């Protein structure tokens, strides 16, 4: 038990100092390093609608006649989209493969991918393949390139069919 006032004041002061110390310390310490110093990062990300599972076809005149007049579209298209397959090779080794299913209950939405791939910085041979059609075994898009990644660098692999397919940013 402490009866003297100065000691009680000191105790209070210490308590406030401790409070400030805790706040000051853990608001910035210990430092955190997300990626090891010699590492670089590839972010593979795209959102892309796969091709339709079935091609659109012309409706016959009989079929058209059966439809209400306001719904007589000449082409009939299935809504379902094909899944999108993506593969990434680094220096001849496959480091990632993923089949992204189309979103939506009717499987008519876009397939999306987001994947972080950590690797050593330096020169690498990078090959990316993407397939967005149901039939056949061959990939619809390919890109192969030698990249030099600096430590800490982020390389983004995206896909945009209108901009020529697989892009490296």
């Amino acid at each position, binding site marked *: 038990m402490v009866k003297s006032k100065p000691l009680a004041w000191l105790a*209070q002061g210490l308590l406030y100092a401790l409070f*400030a110390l805790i706040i000051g310390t853990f608001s910035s310490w210990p*430092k955190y390093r997300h990626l090891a110093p010699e590492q670089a990062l590839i972010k593979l990300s795209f959102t892309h609608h796969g091709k339709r599972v079935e091609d659109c076809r012309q409706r016959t005149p009989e079929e058209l006649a059966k439809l209400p007049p306001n719904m007589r579209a000449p082409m009939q298209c299935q809504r379902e989209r094909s899944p999108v397959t993506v593969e990434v090779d680094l220096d001849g080794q496959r480091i990632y493969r993923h089949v992204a299913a189309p979103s939506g209950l009717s499987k008519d939405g876009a397939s*999306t991918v*987001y994947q972080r791939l950590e690797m050593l910085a330096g020169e690498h041979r990078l090959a990316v393949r993407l397939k967005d059609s149901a039939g056949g075994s061959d990939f619809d898009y390919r890109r192969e390139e030698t990249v030099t990644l600096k430590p*800490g660098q982020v390389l983004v692999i*995206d896909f945009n069919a209108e901009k020529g397919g697989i892009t490296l940013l």
Partner: protein
Amino acid sequence: MAHTQKIPPAIPYLIRGYPWQHLGSLGFLFFWLIAVTGFYLFAVLDTSVEGVYSSIVWLTREQWYLGGIIRSLHRYAADAFILVTLLHLTREFLLGRYGGFRRFSWLTGVPLLWFAYISGIGGFWLNWDQLGQFSAVASAEWLDWLPIFATPFTRNFLTAAAVSDRLFTLLVFVHIGVPLLLIFGLWFHVQRINRAEVFPPRALGIGALAALLTLALALPVVSQGKADLAVVPGPLALDWFYLFLHPLMYVSSPASVWTLIAGITLFLLLLPFLPSSRRVPSIAVVNPDNCNGCRRCFDDCPYAAIVMVPHPQATIVKPGLQLAKVMPDLCASCGICAGSCPSSTPFRNVPALVTGIDMPQLPVEALRQALKLRLAALEGDTRIVVFGCDHGASVEALSGADVAGFSLICTGMLPPSFVDYAWREGAAGVLVTGCRDSACAFRLGSRWSEQRLLGLREPRLRFNAARERLCIAWADPGEEPELLATLTDFRRRLATFAPPPVLQANRLDGISPNTPETNAGTGGTADGQI
């Protein structure tokens, strides 16, 4: 004037009682500090993606004496807010304060943690420095584990070109909107607390603010390099109070962090419903025949457990007559209502004292009987009655030939007229003790008691006898030696006064009020054995 003895607080009391009792109100204080500093920052910041970083850096460097300090205070107050909130939660958990009448406050407190973290983490993004970039990307990767976004949220932070001013406007909106939800939630959180303490005691508040200001001056918060999404930030001075989830995710996985957070939230939400948290409460009971609808119990109940309803005996003569009604789920069984009821006076000329609102485990009639008996058994000219409580310094330690100690559920359940009654029945003095105001187990018991005894609150003590014969000394467990010293001092003072009239009359009649067989001044328990 009644003697109020101030027992100086001891160090264990500092640790056990004072600051820890006010974690909730400290949280309120820090919240308002965040809000006030946030207003300034919002007013001066350029909230475009390009402008935000440089405007904060300008504030920190060029206007360090105002904007810089405000920025640091904003951050440190946010850290302090989360720290006291987590301590508040831990303390209430350890004290088992989540079930029964506290269920509402507990359940409404849980979502506040989410709001605090959402607005806090979002605040780091708005700096748009490398720490903000890291937090934004990590949070987006974490959120994307749930299939909630049609397009992955992470794509908003894929490249510099992807980060739009529109997104930033949305983030500012969230950073302001969620704290508004937090205020609303805080209001709900204290709804069941009568006279909730939304500001800490002045000394504590000033001390805490001074500590933060000193910290802001000594260690100003600075930005950590402009965000550049083409580069992974190097070593970062991480704010572990808010951002610990990011490293945790990178050493485990988004799924495990979601499982952890969802698990903790679910645990906290289910806790008040677990069988172990149920108790068999002896809640306050209203006797309509003795309730005149004065609303004193309604005003004094610390947990808003009493509502006023129309009295069944309302007549044409008294059409608006009301009756107190106890909400069983909210009642803490503290008995403070019994102490507030005007019908609790022991002077009533009835064979058995029945009051308007009473505690079944310690009715006022049992207290009156015990007081009479025990007083009659005391010896000497300085017979002292001590009223204490089960949660404060033990009154057992004060027992003696001339001391009768009564341990109540809470000192607040003592009707002030019992002090008067004790004097009339032969007590030379009455010592009232219990938990210190800041540490009162039932929040307001000590405060209401003191105000009633000093005549500042209804029901007031009628000072028919000399006021010097009353001593009020609040003391927590562990402070029994100090309380004993206060009692000894009180006894010494009483010895200088003339004996109480009852004893003088007894002497004239040749009656000895002492009955040695029952002459043991022991404290009572909450189950009615006083």
